[in-house]
Each structure stands twice: as structure tokens, then as C-alpha cells.
């Protein structure tokens, strides 16, 4: 007698929908995972829920108005986004930004990197199953940083503080002292998170050897920022194609060995230490007074015709702005090369073959901002 198996009991591929309203998708992101047992065999990411046509809208805005739109696109690293945009227009207009403005830009951008990475550490802890603890450690630190941003810019989220050529207005008188105060908090908060997560055995077991990407793969997929460096490519635009005044500071570029989720976490933690060091150096070198806009600043910004691709190292990677101008006061075409979009495009190849539970960790390790993905 031959024993037959019931074909209905065979393991078949099953689609699982995740998102768009799911806490671990970090926004409105949806992916349809095809799983076989616990293994992922295919992923279909769906983005575009937040698409607002920013590139089209910016074609109707003049160069100053476009700055506000950068905030709305990259709402966790607003200063990086503004900086990339301003640099593109400044390069086309051939404007020389005064030193004091450059230093304040660097200080704020690096503080923004801290606040963004705090956000990452908090949210990533939740992805890993630490429940609220990492979040409650990280969020007060982000709040301290945001208080300074609010004092400087008057806004908590949409700063619109950088201008083409410099800054919108002078920082408050106690700016340097306030930044020093906040850095003390940040260093402590960083230590707290480090103590909580980095050497935690469960966290390590959860993160290590998932979502591995080799250096060649990372380059081919156009990854950038911590994702690229985790795969062992020592590439940081602040160091390798320095913009603003980054060539005047001493800092290290952390590089990973394995290209897995744990490396990406470690790199961001180390980057925060480096950012604190950069801010301290910048505060020392900051000229006590001086102009914050060029002396010969035209009232209406007009670029000559031409094109430029500017890029800055945002907390998520290479934030690029491809600006095409036909002359006049509006961009003819403006493409925002957002690091979240490019990093997320590798999701499929990073998750296929992994376990279902790890997909959440891999997505979390990308540190995407959905507004930045969809623009």
C-alpha cells in the first residue's frame, strides 16, 4: 500500500501584505511579501502614497521658495536637504558664502544628523522588539536638539533657514552656549542607547547576518550613506568630495565589515560620535561675527542658464539635486535624488531569501523617510 500525501497540505507560496499603515514601515509604505513557510521568495514594494509632485511644484517657484519644499521632502534631515539645494543654486550663480554662514550651516546640519540618527536608533530598537525603551531614550535627545533649531529658526520642523548665499538671519546670542549644552545631553543619550542596544545579546542575534550586501552589490544598486559604508566602501561626501567647510575638520569615516543590518546600526552610532566632534570643532572655529550673506547679494535670484548636480551627505546618504536652469528665477527642471529612494530600491534583493521577521529589520536598517522616497 502506497501512502499518498494530501496535496492540499503542501507548502505553497503565500502573499502577505504589509502596510501601508503598519508601524514598522516607518510611514506609508506597502510591500507585498511572497513567503514560503517563513522564507521570503519575492517582495513587491509599493511606494508613492506620499507623492506630491514636489519637483513639478518647484518649477513654478523661484529659487528662494524652493527651499521650503526641501524641508517638506526630507523632514528628518531638513538642513541637509536645504544645503544641497542651496549649494546647487550657489554653484550656478557663482556665489561665495561667507565663512560664518558656512560654519553655522555645518553646525546645524551635523546637529540635524544627530537628531535624525537618534530617531533611527529609537525606531530601530522598536523594530528589533525593544518595545518603547529605545524610543524613550532617543526622543528626549531629539527634543533637546529641536529646541535649539526652534530657537534659531522659529520652527520645529520646517526650518527654511538656509538661504541661497547664506542664512536667513543671525543666530541668537547664546547660540554657542546652547549648542554646547545640548551636546552634553546628546553625548549622554548616545551612551544610553549604546549601553542599551549595541552589546545586547538579543539585539545582536536579531541584527547580525541579515540583509547582507557586498561592496560590489552596494555600488551597483546605487546605495549611499551608512548603507554603502556598512558594505565596506569608505565613501563619505563630507570627506571625499568636501563641500562647504568640511575639509577643515578632523573626523573619521566608520566602515563596516559584513554589510549586514548590525553594521548599519554600528555605523550610525559611530557617526553620531563623529558629528559631535565636528560640531565641537566647528564651534571652536566659528568666526565670532561677520556677514552671513554675501555682500553683493541680488535681491531677486537669477541663475545663468546651465545645469549642475550638487550633492551632500545627508544622514541617509547622498542627497543630490540636479538643477537645470534656462536662466531666470525659476528652475527649468529640478530632480531630487533622494537617498531613501535609491536605498529602498535595493529592498527586493536584500530581503529575498531572508526570514519574514527579518524583513522588518532590514527595512528599519535602511532608515527611510517616506516623504523623501515619494517626493
Amino acid at each position: 500500500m502506497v501512502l499518498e500525501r494530501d496535496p492540499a497540505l503542501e507548502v505553497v507560496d503565500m502573499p502577505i501584505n504589509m502596510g501601508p499603515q503598519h508601524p514598522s514601515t516607518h510611514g506609508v509604505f506597502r510591500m507585498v511579501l511572497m513567503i514560503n513557510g517563513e522564507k521570503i521568495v519575492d517582495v513587491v514594494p509599493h511606494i508613492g502614497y506620499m507623492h506630491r509632485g514636489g519637483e513639478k511644484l518647484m518649477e513654478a517657484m523661484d529659487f528662494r521658495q524652493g527651499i521650503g519644499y526641501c524641508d517638506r521632502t526630507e523632514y528628518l534631515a531638513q538642513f541637509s536637504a536645504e544645503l544641497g539645494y542651496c549649494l546647487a543654486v550657489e554653484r550656478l550663480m557663482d556665489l561665495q558664502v561667507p565663512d560664518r554662514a558656512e560654519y553655522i550651516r555645518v553646525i546645524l546640519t551635523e546637529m540635524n544628523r544627530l537628531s535624525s540618527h537618534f530617531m533611527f536608533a529609537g525606531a530601530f530598537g522598536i523594530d528589533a522588539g525593544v518595545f518603547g525603551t529605545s524610543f524613550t531614550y532617543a526622543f528626549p535627545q531629539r527634543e533637546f536638539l529641536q529646541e535649539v533649531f526652534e530657537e534659531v529658526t522659529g520652527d520645529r520642523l520646517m526650518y527654511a533657514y538656509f538661504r541661497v548665499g547664506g542664512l536667513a538671519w543671525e543666530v541668537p546670542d547664546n547660540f554657542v552656549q546652547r549648542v554646547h549644552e545640548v551636546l552634553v545631553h546628546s553625548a549622554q543619550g548616545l551612551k544610553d542607547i549604546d549601553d542599551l542596544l549595541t552589546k545586547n545579546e538579543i539585539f545582536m542575534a536579531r541584527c547580525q547576518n541579515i540583509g547582507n550586501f557586498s561592496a560590489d552589490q552596494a555600488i551597483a544598486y546605487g546605495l549611499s550613506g551608512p548603507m554603502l559604508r556598512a558594505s565596506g566602501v569608505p565613501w563619505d561626501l563630507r570627506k571625499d568630495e568636501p563641500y562647504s567647510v568640511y575639509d577643515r575638520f578632523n573626523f573619521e569615516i566608520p566602515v563596516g565589515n559584513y554589510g549586514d543590518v548590525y553594521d548599519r546600526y554600528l555605523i550610525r552610532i559611530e557617526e553620531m560620535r563623529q558629528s559631535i566632534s565636528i560640531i565641537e570643532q566647528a564651534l571652536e572655529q566659528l568666526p565670532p561675527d561677520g556677514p552671513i550673506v554675501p555682500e553683493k547679494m541680488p535681491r531677486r535670484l537669477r541663475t545663468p542658464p546651465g545645469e549642475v548636480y550638487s550633492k551632500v551627505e545627508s544622514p541617509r546618504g547622498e542627497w543630490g539635486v540636479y538643477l537645470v536652469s534656462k536662466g531666470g528665477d525659476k528652475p527649468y527642471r529640478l530632480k531630487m535624488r533622494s537617498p531613501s529612494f535609491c536605498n529602498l530600491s535595493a529592498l527586493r534583493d536584500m530581503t529575498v531569501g531572508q526570514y519574514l521577521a527579518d524583513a522588518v529589520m532590514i527595512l528599519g536598517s535602511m532608515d527611510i523617510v517616506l516623504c523623501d522616497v515619494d517626493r
Partner: protein
Amino acid sequence: MLPEGQEPEASSDAGVTPEAAAADPTPAEKPDAAAPIAAPAADEAAEKPVAKPAAERPARPAKEVEPKEAPRVAPPPGSINEVLATAAGVTLTAAYMVPEMKGECVAVEVSRDDVPAVMTAARDDSRLDLKYLRCLSGVDWQEEGLEVVYHLWSFTKHHSLQVKTRVTYDDPMVPSIATIYPAADWHERETRDMFGINFAGHWNLVPLLLPEDMTDHFPLRKDNPLQEIEEWQGDNLRDGAGEGDE
């Protein structure tokens, strides 16, 4: 923000000059009739010849001095465009320098059929070694067609290269390079969404950012106007709007 329909008559194109000319003599400037600030329209200047002797301000320089196109400077001999042409075995339509953040880089224009060969050569040739596709953008040049711009970078040689190709509205097809550079996958899908450029050979050219059924409407093309309110906001929120052009 998606415009509801394509209304060709709704102040569509970038016709700045007629609008600016119409908006220039605003009521705010009327009292100052002794010295009209802005009168770019030729017939108005002819109507008030009396204004000319009383000109305390220097005459406005002619608007036409502003160049319409960026000057094109040929790359110095021995640049990577020559290496690229020999490595790929194609003729480059044009090669010139474009500004980068610091310094300049080479931009080359190729015909669309040469794109895969050029990209493969750029990636694999050891003298170029451009393994990193930074960015892929579409640009609508209106009557001059649609353009696709590839930004490449080499981690080892530390040089960058822009590759451009043009297609017409009637036949907006460019061979896909998603198999050569996997990074191009989503960029090409986005460019198809926004400009309607079909990347032939792409394995999954379905709408990415736009709704699944929105396959015949290309928001970033110039013939696709913004809603009137958006144009209006752009013009009216501007500092000094209505005060003349400068």
C-alpha cells in the same frame, strides 16, 4: 496636486515674457509716471516719449543680453570622452564641460541606440571604471524633445561623467540599462511615470510613484500645466511681485 485634465489653453507653457510684460505697469507704479520704471513693451515706450528726457535713472540694459543657453566648452584633449568613444566603439554626438560642485566634469551626448554600449563600456573599461550610477533624470526640452541624463561616478578614479540622450515626443523610447546598473531600475520607472519615456527591455516598467492605471498622463512634461492656483501662488507669494522685474 495632479491636474485634472490637460487643458492646453490654461496658461500652460513657460511663456514668461507676455505675462511679465502685462503685469509690469502695475497701479503702484502709476503715480510715478514721470519716470516709468518698466516699460519693456515697445509700443508703450513709443506712447510716452516725454519720459525719456526726464530720465534720471540710467536706461535699462537690454534684456536680450541674458544668454539663452549655457556656453559649451569642449573638454580638453585626453579627457574621458575620448576613452569612452574608443571603448564603446561609438561616435559621441557632442561632448562638453558642465559645472560640478567643485570644478567641472565631462558631459557627452549619445544617440539612444548607443546607450547600452556606452554604459557597458563606462562600467567595465578599466580606464573609466564608472561603477556607480548616481542619478538618472528626465528633462523635457519641449520642441527639442525629451532628454535622459545619467550621472556616473567612479570610486576608484574619482571622476564623474554625464551621459545624455535625446528622444522625440513621437517615439519616446530609450533602451533600459537596469541590467547594466541595477540602480537604474526604480529611476527608470520613475522617469517613465513622469515623462512617458519607455525604457525598452526593462523587466518591470509599471507605474511606481503614480497610480497603477495612470499610464497616459505624464505630470513632469511641460505641456502638463499646474493647477492655476499653484501657478498663482508661485507668482504672488514672491517677494516684490508686481514691482517690476528687478
